[in-house]
């Protein structure tokens, strides 16, 4: 997948994430890249909604990693074997060492887990050689406009 989408509001960004999440399968890794306020949190909330997670998606900035279990999996999740969304935030990190020490490799690419990593550009080494869906957030001309570049790496 290689495409660029333009969203005009937070709601549109979220809707795009919901739509994309519905195409994901277990083991997929989604890397989010973009500045503070670019829309990464909104995107993860949308992804969680698309996958069928009902609990709140808290910022993992302080704890680095939060896993959200899918409590009531729909037919699709069952077929694809998706059991949880692992939400990682590398905002405070310079490299992948800290994530490795808390066991990120148990989740990354695990067949029952979708992993989404905010500030993925800060932990590039962790993702080297892995199949990753990269999503880059840029700002449009207008205040609420976002240019979102989606590519397979």
């Amino acid at each position, binding site marked *: 997948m290689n495409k660029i989408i333009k969203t005009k509001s*937070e709601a549109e960004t979220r809707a795009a994430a919901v739509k994309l999440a519905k195409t994901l399968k277990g083991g997929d890794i989604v890397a989010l890249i973009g*500045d*503070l*306020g*670019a*829309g990464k*949190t*909104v995107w993860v*909330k949308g992804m969680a909604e698309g996958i069928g997670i009902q609990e*709140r*998606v*808290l*910022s993992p*900035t*302080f*704890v*680095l*990693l*939060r896993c959200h279990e899918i409590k009531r999996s729909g037919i699709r999740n069952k077929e694809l074997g998706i059991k949880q969304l692992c939400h990682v935030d590398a*905002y*405070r*990190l*310079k490299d992948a*060492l*800290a994530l490795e*020490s*808390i066991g990120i490799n148990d989740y990354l690419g695990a067949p029952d887990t979708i992993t989404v990593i905010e500030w993925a550009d800060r932990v590039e080494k962790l993702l080297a050689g892995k199949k990753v869906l990269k999503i880059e957030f840029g700002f449009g001309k207008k*205040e609420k406009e976002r240019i979102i570049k989606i590519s397979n790496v």
Partner: protein
Amino acid sequence: MRILGIETSCDETSVVLLEASGGLKAPKFRVLKNLVSSQIPIHRKTGGVVPEVAAREHVGIIVPMIINVMGKLKPDLIAVTAGPGLITSLRVGVDAARILSVVKKIPLVGVNHLEGHIYANWLTTKKQELRIKNQDFFPALCLIVSGGHTELVLMKDHGKYRRIGATRDDAAGEAFDKSAKLMGLPYPGGPEIARLAAGGNPRAYEFPRPMLNSDNFDFSFSGLKTAVRVFIENHEANKSQFQDVAASIQAAIIEVLIKKTIWAAKEYKVKSVLLAGGVSANKILRQYLGEAIAVELPKTSYHIPPMEYTTDNAAMIAVAGYFHAARKKFSNPLTLEARAQWEL
């Protein structure tokens, strides 16, 4: 009894020796020795806590700190933060406490960090006496605000908590920190924004107050980052406005916190409101919440922790541990685990 308290949930290593007496009915606490080793100077360089560095720092200093605080004395109880927090940091404190508990045969209590923050309200200083009287205290509403948490917790009795509202994304302290980062201010951002805000006009700019009028007690602070970023970009040249910007950001965060707290206090007909967590050091929040309660709920008592116990500290963990021990709730040192996502 004498309690050894240990707290390593994030970037402060803190060890305390606390004298506690009075049981559940008339609890009294006196801090005998309190050591805090802050890593803020280290983390300032990187603009935030670096977990690996934090854990290494904890490992290096925890044993000498415990020895220093304990001296030759054998405490009657060990209380340690077991979560929530940074797992690599938590483990250092928890494992030290477990080993000490087994080897010296001292009872152990694993304390929830948020519960610790609530119990900071029972600590006293020369400036601030204990105003909590057990009769007419419960049910209490606790507003817990820190870098990692923003929660409204209904406390029906010691150890009985119910979360009635919480942030859906970023914590209030995180909103302070990340806004500060966008403004180019040093870490930790909360105190920097508060300092600048003191000289600014809180009504100068209108920043969003998400969920202010929503039909629940939840919060959302993530959108504030976007608003601050846009503002900074559009006003790049004019750094003299920074005081007004800081004051306006602070006002946006605090207004939502206060409004929801008052509303929840009315809804649940609480007898007291407690402020807790690192952001409870914010003087404007302390003052304005107190004023709002005095006006809207004159019969409700209002409690704030002493300034020096607002940030992470082991004294509050020891106090919480005392209330557990008073109810005979102990942890097994062989099985106590650090839990990064432990909800109150």
